[in-house]
Structure formats: structure tokens, C-alpha cells
């Protein structure tokens, strides 16, 4: 099994206007009584894509998945799969399979019988079923557990049975509802790569629901950030991280420092943002809003340098006091309090073995960053 990185270089069907999306949510709304779980949402997912729906609990991500599986029907709008409207098609006739958060393994059946269940429903011949089941169990490395019942397995093994059962029918789309939620951290990280390999080898379209941003970042080709039943942004992990579209997305994914101010100047050389205390930030990233608009300048902690002396060019620099230091081994986190009281979080990679940190608590320190290090957020 070849190992794959998190970013597939040649895979970007969403950028190609010729490619027809495989799954389309078209102005989909879902209400439960007074509660609107999904609000006029549109989304396109492409064939063989590993697509993540990321959001806090109650953002509507599981509802989207359940509507795709056929357990709920949209109140308004349509869902298309390969051009076919899914409305009214019951779950047992949809070419999608789901891996449940609780795994939903049948407790009265052995591992083998669980994996064979979907194939039997299809009316597949017995020898073929046996062959496919053996193949699936080998794929998830559970061959020697074929005769066990689910309660005789560990959490990680159960998760793999659930996975084998849901891909056994070779569905066009595999839906995964928090598939790694019940596993411990180490197992989760291993399983993430296994899932990516599996998706590559079987050539399936995966739609995964998760609240764990690291999980989404690691595995997905694209991520949709959901909030209150609406899509905030759909983009690749790198885009989401480096070019978030809004304050919400910027602060939801990873750590970020936000400077609120007004857009002062805007020309070919770049943009200037004036903060309330008069400080001016010069940025190379553009903004499609007129001067005078309220904007936020957002910058990730690792893109800010901390030093005990002011930087030579004096550009995008501010003086402050070291408020907190956290040494994490691979990096050190500094919380610097600026003169205006704003706390700025920075991280420095410990590329060489640190003998003595030149900075300590209550030291005067300068933060600085390059003009291309941050983004301007208008929403």
C-alpha cells in the first residue's frame, strides 16, 4: 500500500469548470419544528474527493450527512447524486453507505456476518460474498477476528469492522460520521492515514463529518466550514488556514491574532490598516473594499517573530512585554502584551536545541512580521 501525503497535487476538479460535480446540495433547507438545522445551503462535491464537513456541534453537519444517506429529507431544495435527484429515494436504494459514529455494529452477528450483511441484501452469490468479506477483513487487518462478536473486540477493532462493512458494497459515496471520535489520539492519527490510503485505493468519494479540525486538515481534499446551518467557506486545508474568508473561519481553524482597524490606504504597493491606537500595519494582501472600511488584520502565531531588539527596518513592528512563555519542546509559545493592552500569541520553532532562552517573563520584546504574513478580513 503506497503511502500518501495530505495534499494530492494533481487533484483539483473543483477548479476545472468542465468537470460536473458528483454530489450537489442545491439551496437545501432542513427544519426540525422551529429549529433550522440547515439554511439554504449549496455545496458541490466532486467524484473521488475526500470532502470534510467541519463545524462545532449543532452546526448542521450531521443533518447534511443524514439527508445524503436518506434518513432525513430536505424541507426545501434538492440533493443530486450523479445528476439524479435523491428526493423520495429510501436509504436502502441509495448507492451510498454510511459509517456511523456509534459504529452501529449488529451485536448478535459475528464480524464476518456484519461485513457480509450488505452483500446478502444485494443478493450476491455465497462464494462471492465469502471472497469479498475475506478481502475486506484483510484490508482492515481483522482476518483472525472473523468469528468474534462485536463485544469481544476493542474500540479500534470495532471501528475497522464498521469501516469494512460500509465499504464492502463498494458504494459510490462513503459517508463517515465522526469516524474516529471514539478512538484515542495515537490510534486516531494512525487511522487517519489508513482512511486516506483506503479512499485512494478504492477510488471512492468520501464525505466525512467531524468537529476535529486537525482530522479534517489531515485527510480532506477540501473542507466546508459550517456554522448555524450555513457554509462559511469551502476550500482546501491550506487555503482555509492561510486565506480564511472571514473572522469566524480564521478563529475557528487554528490560532490567530486579530487586529481590528480601518482600511487607510489601498494601492498597487499594498494596503495600510490603521488601528485604534494609531499603529499602522502594512500588508501585501488585497481587499476589495473602499478605504475607511472596518477590517481585521489576521495573522497566525508562527508568522510573527519575537526578539529582544527592534527589527532593523521598523516595518510592522510593535513593542510589548513577554506575558507568558510555554515551552512545548518542538516550539515555544510567547504571549506578548502590547502597549495598548492587546495580547499577541506567537510561536517559534525550536530548530536548534535551546540552551538558554534569551527571553523570559516581563522582558521587553518586539514583535514583527512581514507584509505578506497576514490576511485582511472584511467579514
Amino acid at each position: 500500500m503506497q503511502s500518501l501525503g495530505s495534499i494530492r497535487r494533481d487533484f483539483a476538479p473543483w477548479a476545472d469548470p468542465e468537470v460536473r460535480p458528483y454530489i450537489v446540495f442545491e439551496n437545501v433547507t432542513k427544519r426540525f419544528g422551529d429549529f433550522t438545522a440547515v439554511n439554504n445551503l449549496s455545496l458541490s462535491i466532486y467524484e473521488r474527493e475526500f470532502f470534510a464537513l467541519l463545524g462545532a456541534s449543532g452546526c448542521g453537519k450531521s443533518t447534511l450527512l443524514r439527508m445524503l444517506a436518506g434518513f432525513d429529507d430536505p424541507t426545501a431544495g434538492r440533493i443530486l447524486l450523479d445528476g439524479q435527484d435523491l428526493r423520495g429515494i429510501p436509504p436502502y436504494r441509495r448507492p451510498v453507505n454510511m459509517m456511523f459514529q456509534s459504529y452501529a455494529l449488529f451485536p448478535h452477528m459475528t464480524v464476518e456476518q456484519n461485513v457480509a450483511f450488505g452483500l446478502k441484501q444485494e443478493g450476491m452469490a455465497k462464494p462471492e460474498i465469502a471472497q469479498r468479506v475475506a478481502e475486506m477483513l484483510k484490508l482492515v487487518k481483522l482476518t483472525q477476528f472473523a468469528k468474534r462478536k462485536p463485544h469481544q473486540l476493542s474500540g479500534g477493532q470495532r471501528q475497522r469492522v464498521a469501516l469494512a462493512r460500509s465499504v464492502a458494497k463498494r458504494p459510490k459515496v462513503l459517508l463517515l460520521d465522526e469516524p474516529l471520535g471514539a478512538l484515542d489520539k495515537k490510534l486516531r492519527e494512525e487511522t487517519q492515514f489508513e482512511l486516506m490510503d483506503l479512499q485512494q485505493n478504492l477510488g471512492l468519494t468520501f464525505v466525512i463529518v467531524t468537529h476535529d479540525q486537525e482530522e479534517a486538515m489531515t485527510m480532506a481534499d477540501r473542507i466546508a466550514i459550517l456554522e448555524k446551518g450555513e457554509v462559511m467557506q469551502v476550500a482546501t486545508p491550506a487555503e482555509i488556514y492561510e486565506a480564511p474568508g472571514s473572522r469566524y473561519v480564521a478563529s475557528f481553524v487554528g490560532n490567530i491574532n486579530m487586529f481590528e482597524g480601518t482600511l487607510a490606504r489601498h494601492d498597487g504597493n499594498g494596503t495600510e490598516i490603521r488601528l485604534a491606537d494609531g499603529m499602522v500595519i502594512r500588508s501585501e494582501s488585497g481587499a476589495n473594499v473602499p478605504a475607511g472600511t472596518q477590517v481585521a488584520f489576521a495573522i497566525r502565531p508562527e508568522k510573527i517573530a519575537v526578539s529582544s531588539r527592534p527589527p532593523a527596518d521598523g516595518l510592522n513592528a510593535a513593542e510589548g512585554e513577554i506575558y507568558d512563555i510555554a515551552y512545548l519542546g518542538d516550539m515555544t509559545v510567547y504571549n506578548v502584551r502590547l502597549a495598548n493592552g492587546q495580547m499577541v500569541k506567537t510561536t517559534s520553532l525550536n530548530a536548534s536545541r535551546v540552551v538558554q532562552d534569551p527571553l523570559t517573563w516581563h522582558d521587553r520584546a518586539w514583535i514583527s512580521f512581514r507584509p505578506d504574513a497576514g490576511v485582511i478580513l472584511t467579514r
Partner: protein
Amino acid sequence: MAETTANTASVGSVQSETSGMGRSILGAITNRLVIIVPYLWLLFFFLVPFAIVFKISLSQTAISMPPYTPVFGFDNFLESVRDLSFDNYVWLTEDALYFRAYVSSLFIAAVSTLLTLLVGYPIAYGMARAPTAIRPTLLMLVILPFWTSFLIRVYAWIGILKPEGLLNQVLLATGIIDQPLIILNTNIAIFIGIVYSYLPFMVLPLYSALEKMDYSLIEAAQDLGCRPIAAFWKITFPLSLSGVVAGCLLVFIPAVGEFVIPDLLGGSQTLMIGKTLWSEFFNNRDWPVASAVAVILLLILVVPIMFFQSAQARAQEQGRT
């Protein structure tokens, strides 16, 4: 110095161990006492009476007080033992009445149990799938009939089932039938009576089995291509089997020995062992034969009870996760 410290430490630990042991012995005794109470209860109120009944079944009927002989005393104990015999059991095999009564009782109980299951399963299923907020109310409604005397409730069925009763009046008035149905004093009336009376004993274990079932299992089955009805037979029903077994035995066992329902609702030709037992005791005043009938009934019921026990044990094994 170091040695002394070590010694002190070990002494200390020994002391704490001793007090720990004392506590655990006290705990063990308390545990025993707690277990002993129900065992004593069973000993005095089940085993001893059963031994007495068994002894009477080995005696001969006599016109005396009590109506059997020998009566055990301290002076004639050995002679009395010599006088005991299995004649009454032999008698049970010689008169076909008893055999027919046993078979008929088992048959009526089996049919009633099946009918109760058919009526009770949908009720339990509906309750288990009802919104969580109204489930306690539904449970209450199932238990509610127990607030009225069992005897009165069975009596009430006479008023409903008799030829000029409520049911026939409604059916005649609506024109569904033009002649009153004869239900009372037939086996059908007994079935109705048993299904009605024992329904809660079926519904409650079924409900508890169905209620704890994860609904995502059904969704998973459907997701894998299973139609809802097939999903019921492949997932829901097998997983509720412990409830089915418990409910069936809770109905079947008392139904076999049922006396009140066949006596009030059944006809004179209805043969049930409970009625036979009653007439042996009170009409024939033949306590020894009646006792033999009771002992055999108990032996017949031990089989399903043991089946129940092993099914319970298996269910517990399954539930262990």
C-alpha cells in the same frame, strides 16, 4: 536506622492490612446476611410448604381431620414413613382425566402466550419508539389495570362476552352479525381472559428489551440495503429475543396453572389442571391426589423455568461489553 524505618513501615502496613481485613470480614458477613434473608424466605414459604405438599401426596385419603393418613408424630415417625407410598402418582397415570387436563392446560397456555406475544409486541414496540417524554405515561397505562382487583376485572369480561353482553350488543346494533356470538364459556373466552390479564407481563420485558436497542442499528441495516420489514426480522426481533423469552415465560408459567379465568370464563367441558386441582381439594376432599397433581404440575413447569434461566444467563453474557 534505615532498617528500623523499614520495620516500622511494615508494621504500619500490617496494621492497616489487619483493619482492612476486619472490615472485609464484616463486609462479607453483611453480604451473606443480605443474601440469607431471601433464601430463608424461600426456605420457609416455598421449600417447607412444598415438602409438606409432597408428603401429603404420598399419603392416603382418610375420613379424619386432617383428611389423610399417616399423620407424622414423634412417637410413630418410622411407621409413618413405612406407610407412605406412590399410589397417588400411579393413580394419576391410570385415570386419563389427569393426562388430558395437563395436556389441555399446556395447550391453552401455549396458545394464550402466543396470542399475548402477538398483541404485546406491537404495544411494546410503539412504546419504545414513542417520544421519550410520554414513555413514562405509557408505562403507567400498562400497569394501571393492576390497581383494580384481578377477580373483578375477570368478572367484568363476563359482562362483555355473554350472549346479551356489551360486545354482542354493539355487533348486533352495527349489523355486523345478526345472531349473538357464543364466546362466554368457551376456550376463546379463556384466551381473551388470559391475554387481557397477563398482557403487562408480556409488554414490560419486551419494552425494556426494545427500549435499550440503539436505533442506529436499524438505520445501518437500511443503509446496507435492507427494507424496513426485513430490518425488523433481521435486527430488531433477534435483539429483542431476551424480552420475548422473558415475556412468554412470565405468561406461560402462571397460565398453565390458571384457575380463576377458566372457572369464570371457561365452559364446564373446559379441562384445565387448575380446575382439576380445585375439585380434588374441595369437591372430592382428596388431599393426597390433589397434592400429587400439584407436584407433577410443578415438575412440568420446572423445564420452562430452567430454559428461562439459561436464556437469561446467555442474554447477560451478550450484554457484557
